[in-house]
């Protein structure tokens, strides 16, 4: 008879072996030693086999759980789409007719590739999409565009872009930026994907903004914006705040300018640094809260620095590594 202790011992030994070898770096010697251990005793082999089964089952269960979760995500996305379709009021008869004709043609046709567009630091550029929509990219921006039959999808990987969307009711225009998703039929609006917050500002028309939830991967509508409204989603508080905004300030970049009104210098510096390779840095902490108002020309950093130096008590010094330090000028 085997005692309980012996049995535990064997199982623990098997676990110790397997734990050693699962790490991906076990030596051949280890593997041989484990094989020898298994051969030495039938009970060893049985314990080892049992443990193998357990791992197989867990691997399978893990995969199954992940698959279930993914299917739930897909079902949620499909349900959401059906709902939107319903409200969009597409002529279903016409759609069905077109679908019937298209289905055989399109079934095996390749899904459109994503088009990538990007701008370097300090660069601005406008692209016209195949549907006539125009996208203006601000400095250091990267977007990918996938034009599908039933949806126009743009993903902003970083930066800021202004969209002038050609109206097409059967083909929603969707912009994803981080966790924010913007859905429109035809409007003018901008989306900025920031490190700590996303900002969506509407110049004309109606925009639906949804937010992806942590964990479940679903998105829910957080705001409907009309012209002159903006939603700021700050990651830190995970909340979306809707407010009116100043057009001349938010869209100033489109004409190569930055406009600030009583904005703390720290924020101004962060914003300006998007446009230039050599970053500004506040060297004297008391400058951080200095309120800055005015328009800056973004095409030339020297002009920006001159403007700062002449309008405020600021002195700029360029360090060898390129960083431009801002000091409070000593008044005498």
């Amino acid at each position, binding site marked *: 008879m085997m005692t309980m202790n012996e049995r535990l011992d064997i199982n623990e030994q098997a676990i110790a072996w397997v734990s050693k070898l699962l790490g*991906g770096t076990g030596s051949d010697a280890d593997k041989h030693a484990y094989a020898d251990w298994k051969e030495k005793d039938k009970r060893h082999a049985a314990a080892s086999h049992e443990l193998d089964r*357990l791992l*197989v089952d867990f691997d399978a269960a893990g995969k199954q759980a992940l698959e279930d979760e*993914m299917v739930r995500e897909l079902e949620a996305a499909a349900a959401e789409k059906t709902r939107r379709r319903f409200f969009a009021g597409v002529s279903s008869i016409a759609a069905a007719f077109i679908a019937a004709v298209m289905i055989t043609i399109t079934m095996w046709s390749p*899904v459109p590739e994503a088009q990538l567009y990007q701008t370097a630091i300090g660069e601005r550029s406008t692209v016209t999409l195949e549907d006539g929509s125009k996208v203006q990219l601000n400095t250091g921006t990267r977007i990918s565009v996938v034009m*599908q039959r039933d949806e126009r999808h743009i993903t902003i990987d970083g930066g800021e872009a202004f969209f002038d969307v050609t109206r097409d009711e059967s083909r929603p225009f969707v912009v994803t930026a981080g966790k924010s998703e913007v859905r429109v039929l035809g409007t003018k609006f901008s989306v900025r994907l920031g490190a700590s917050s996303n900002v969506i500002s509407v110049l004309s028309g109606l925009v639906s903004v949804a937010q992806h939830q942590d964990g479940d991967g679903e998105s829910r509508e957080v705001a409907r914006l009309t012209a002159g409204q903006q939603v700021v989603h700050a990651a830190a508080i995970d909340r979306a705040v809707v407010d009116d905004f100043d057009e001349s300030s938010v869209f100033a970049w489109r004409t190569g300018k930055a406009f600030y009104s009583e904005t703390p210098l720290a924020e101004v510096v962060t914003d300006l640094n998007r446009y230039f390779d050599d970053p500004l840095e506040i060297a004297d902490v008391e400058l951080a809260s200095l309120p800055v108002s005015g328009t800056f020309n973004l095409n030339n950093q020297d002009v920006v620095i001159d403007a700062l130096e002449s309008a405020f008590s600021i002195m700029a010094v360029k360090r060898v590594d390129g960083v431009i330090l801002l000091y409070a000028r000593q008044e005498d």
Partner: protein
Amino acid sequence: MTDARPTDTCTVLDDVARKRNVRALEKAIKANQGVLIGWLTKKLNSAADAADIAQDVYIRVYKFAAVEQIDNPQALLFKTAANLAINELKRRGRVLRRQVRTEDENMADTVEAVPCGGPTPEEVAGHRQDVIAMMAAIRQLPEKARAAFVKNRFEDKTYADIARELGVSESTVEKYMMDALKRLRARLMRKPQASVLPLPRKARRGKS
């Protein structure tokens, strides 16, 4: 026919049924194409890969439709997409040659070749219970043991990777793993019915 499955559940589709099957499937594909591509693009973080996988999904479900009655085409579509997405993610993340053979390959593709071998509804339900029980067991592990187990088993990470992520030594990771295996074994091996769970699908496959 497989010996594990009585023949009565294994219907051979006639032409009419097959056509009806394919039509239902085409409709489901049409209705869900946007959702599928969007979701795959997000999951795989690549529109090109999403397009490839989507094509693969369509091909597989079509093959399936030729041999098996499909009751819920959308469910099949989503299940296949999830399955292929996982395989793709695994393929990308595979950094570790398994040292201990785990017959993982048997789990490869759900829909590839399953004429009349599908589990019965009872089997599916029982299998679901097993999965839920196992996931619960993992959730109840101490934090570090759980982290080591999940990263190693589900994310295919080596102890070196995990050690770096957790900021501990590799031998400590090995200890966490040992702890995890002991606890999981104790939890699931006691009750025979909860432990064995040869997953129905794979037990039946490939031996006709």
